[in-house]
C-alpha cells in the first residue's frame, strides 16, 4: 500500500520539491556549524532561525492550501490552530525553566508567581513531559477543528459565512489569551525559554537541529497532502469545491470529507506552530490576531492555490519580502505593499506564481509528449487541435 501511495503522489515537481527542501534542511545547518565565520558560504545563526521561521510558515501555508485550494474551505482563522500548537510547545518550554526563573519557583512559571497563584492550574499538568506536550500539539488544534467543523459543516455553513466565523473563532481566542486569569501569561505570553529536551534553545547546534526538523516536518506535511490530494479522496474534495450539492446527490457525505481535511489541516498548522515557538523564542496572544490568518491566506494566493508547492513557495517569498522591506527605509509602507501585492496577484496572476507557471508549461509538455501520451493524442494531428481548445 505504501509504495503505491508514494509512486502516485511523487510526480516530477513533487520530487523536486522534496529534494530541494531536504537539501536546504541539511546544507544550511552544515554551513552554519562547519564553515568558519568569515567564509562567504557561512550562514549566520540568526539567519538559520529566520529561515526556520519561514519553513514553519510554509507548513501553515500547506495546511491552508489543502482545505482552500482543494476543498474550497476558506479558513480565515487558521492562525488559531498554529498558535494553539505554539502554546502547547510554549507550556512545555515554560515547565522546563524550573527554578531558573526570576522567582526561582520550581513548579510555577514566573507569571503565575507574579499573579500570586499558589498552585499550577489543572490544564498545565503533564506539560513537563515532552511526549505529552507533543501529543497536545496535535490534539488541541485537532480537537478544536473537529468540534468547530462538526458544528459548521453539519449546519452547512459555507463560503463567506464560514470564513467569518473562523475569524470570530480566532478573535475570541485572542481575547481569551489576553486575559491574565486565563492562565497562559496574558499579554506577555510565554517566553524566556531555557532548554528543550535538555538542550539550550539559544545554542547554535539546537537551532540547527530545529531547522532540520522543521524541514523534515515540511516534507512530511507535503507528502501527506500529496497522498491525500492524489487519492480518490482528493478527487472527491475537488468535486466538493466545484459543485458541492452535486457531490451530495452522488451519495457522498460532504460534511465528513470536509471535517476530515479540516481536522488534518488544523493538526498540521499546530505542528508548524510548535516548531515555530522554540525558534522565535516567544508565543503571545498576538499570534491569534485575525490579520495573521489573513496574511497566511495571501501567501497561498500569491504562490498559487491548489498547487501545494505554490503555497510553500508563497509563504517563503512573501515573508522574505516582509523581512527585506520591514528592515529598510520602506518599513512604514510594508502593509500597503502587502495589500498592493494581493491586488496585483488577484488581477494579473489569479492562479498565483506556480499556477501561472503550470498553465504555461503544461501545454508545452503535452505537445512534447503527445506521440506517446494518452489515446486522444495517439493519431497524429489530433493532439494539436485539442490543445487549442
Amino acid at each position, binding site marked *: *500500500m505504501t509504495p*503505491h501511495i508514494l509512486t502516485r503522489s511523487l510526480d516530477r515537481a513533487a520530487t523536486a520539491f522534496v529534494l530541494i527542501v531536504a537539501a536546504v534542511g541539511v546544507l544550511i545547518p552544515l554551513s552554519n556549524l562547519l564553515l568558519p565565520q568569515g567564509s562567504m558560504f557561512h550562514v549566520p545563526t540568526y539567519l538559520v532561525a529566520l529561515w526556520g521561521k519561514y519553513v514553519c510558515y510554509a507548513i501553515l501555508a500547506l495546511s491552508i492550501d489543502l482545505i482552500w485550494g482543494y476543498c474550497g474551505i476558506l479558513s480565515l482563522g487558521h492562525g488559531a490552530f498554529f498558535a494553539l500548537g505554539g502554546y502547547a510547545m510554549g507550556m512545555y518550554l515554560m515547565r522546563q525553566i524550573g527554578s531558573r526563573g526570576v522567582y526561582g519557583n520550581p513548579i510555577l512559571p514566573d507569571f503565575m508567581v507574579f499573579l500570586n497563584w499558589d498552585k499550577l492550574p489543572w490544564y498545565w499538568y503533564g506539560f513537563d513531559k515532552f511526549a505529552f506536550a507533543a501529543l497536545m500539539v496535535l490534539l488541541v488544534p485537532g480537537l478544536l477543528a473537529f468540534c468547530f467543523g462538526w458544528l459548521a459543516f453539519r449546519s452547512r455553513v459555507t463560503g463567506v459565512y464560514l470564513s467569518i466565523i473562523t475569524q470570530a473563532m480566532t478573535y475570541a481566542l485572542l481575547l481569551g489569551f489576553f486575559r491574565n486569569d486565563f492562565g497562559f501569561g496574558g499579554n506577555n505570553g510565554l517566553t524566556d525559554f531555557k532548554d528543550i529536551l535538555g538542550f539550550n534553545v539559544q545554542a547554535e547546534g539546537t537551532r540547527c537541529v530545529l531547522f532540520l526538523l522543521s524541514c523534515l516536518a515540511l516534507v512530511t506535511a507535503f507528502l501527506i497532502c500529496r497522498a*491525500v490530494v492524489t*487519492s*480518490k*479522496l482528493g*478527487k*472527491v474534495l*475537488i*468535486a466538493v469545491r*466545484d*459543485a458541492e*450539492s*452535486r*457531490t*451530495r*446527490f*452522488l*451519495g*457522498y*457525505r*460532504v460534511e*465528513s*470529507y470536509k471535517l*476530515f481535511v479540516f481536522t488534518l489541516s488544523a493538526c498540521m498548522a499546530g505542528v508548524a506552530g510548535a516548531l515555530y515557538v522554540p525558534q522565535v523564542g516567544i508565543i503571545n496572544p498576538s499570534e491569534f490576531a485575525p490579520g495573521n490568518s489573513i496574511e497566511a491566506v495571501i501567501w497561498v494566493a500569491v504562490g498559487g492555490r491548489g498547487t501545494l508547492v505554490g503555497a510553500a513557495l508563497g509563504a517563503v517569498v512573501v515573508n522574505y519580502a516582509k523581512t527585506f522591506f520591514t528592515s529598510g527605509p520602506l518599513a512604514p509602507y510594508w502593509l500597503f505593499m502587502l495589500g498592493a501585492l494581493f491586488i496585483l496577484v488577484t488581477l494579473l496572476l489569479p492562479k498565483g506564481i506556480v499556477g501561472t507557471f503550470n498553465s504555461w508549461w503544461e501545454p508545452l509538455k503535452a505537445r512534447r509528449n503527445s506521440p506517446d501520451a*494518452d*489515446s*486522444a493524442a495517439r493519431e497524429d494531428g489530433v493532439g494539436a487541435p*485539442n490543445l487549442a*481548445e
Partner: protein
Amino acid sequence: MNVMDTRATSAMLYLDGVHVSFDGFHAINNLSLTLAPGEMRAIIGPNGAGKTTMMDIITGKTKPDEGTVLFDGTVDLTRLDETRIAELGIGRKFQKPTVFESQTVQDNLLLALNVDHSVRGTLFWRGSKAESERIDKVLETIRLTDARNRLAGSLSHGQKQWLEIGMLLAQDPKVLLVDEPVAGMTDVETHLTAELLKEINRNHTIMVVEHDMTFVRELGVKVTCLHEGSVLAEGSIDQVSSNERVVEVYLGR
C-alpha cells in the same frame, strides 16, 4: 427497513397529498403521483408548475410541509437527507448540466460509481478491473470513449448532458430523475438522447421532465402534466395534448 409486511404500495415512487409552500407561494399543492417499477414517465408542465420542486422533494433537497413520499413502498423519503437518498438508489440529473468541470470525463464517472463512498474508503482506494470495465462500458453507452481524458469543462453542451446521464448510469440507481435532458441540444442529439433513455429504461425506472414535445413523443411513454403544483392530466401524449385544460394552461387564457 423491514420489508414486505409493512409495504404500503407496489409503486417504486409514491407521492400522496404533498404540499410545499415558499413564503406563502404554493409550489406544490396536493400532489399525488405514482411511478411503477420499470416504468418511464415523462413530466410536462408550464414554467412554475412545480416540476423541479417535485424532484427536490424526492431527492431530499426540499422537505414537504405535508404529505407522503415513499420509495419502493417502504422508505419514507421525507425523513432522509440527500446523501442517504442517493445511497438508497435515487439518482438525479439536473436541469443545468452539472459535471465536475476541472476533472476528466473518466474521473467524473469514477466519482459517480456506486462503490464505497466513505472517507476511509476513498483515501485508500485503488482502482479495480471491474471498476474500469464499468467505466469503459458507460463511456461507450454515452459515446464519449474518445473524450475520456478530456476535462469535462471542455465538452460541448450536449456532451455534458450525456456525461451527466453517464454519471447516473455509473451510480446505477433504481430510479433516475432526469431534468430537461435535451435543453439546448440539436435535433440529432435530441434523437440520440431519446434512444439512450429508452436503452437505460430496460433496467431502470425513469422520470423525465421535459418541455420538448417532439422528444416526449419520441419516448412514447405515459405523460403527466403538472400545473400549479398538482396533476392536471395523465395519459398518453396524444390524450394529454388533446386535453382542453392542458391546451388552455399552455397557451394561456
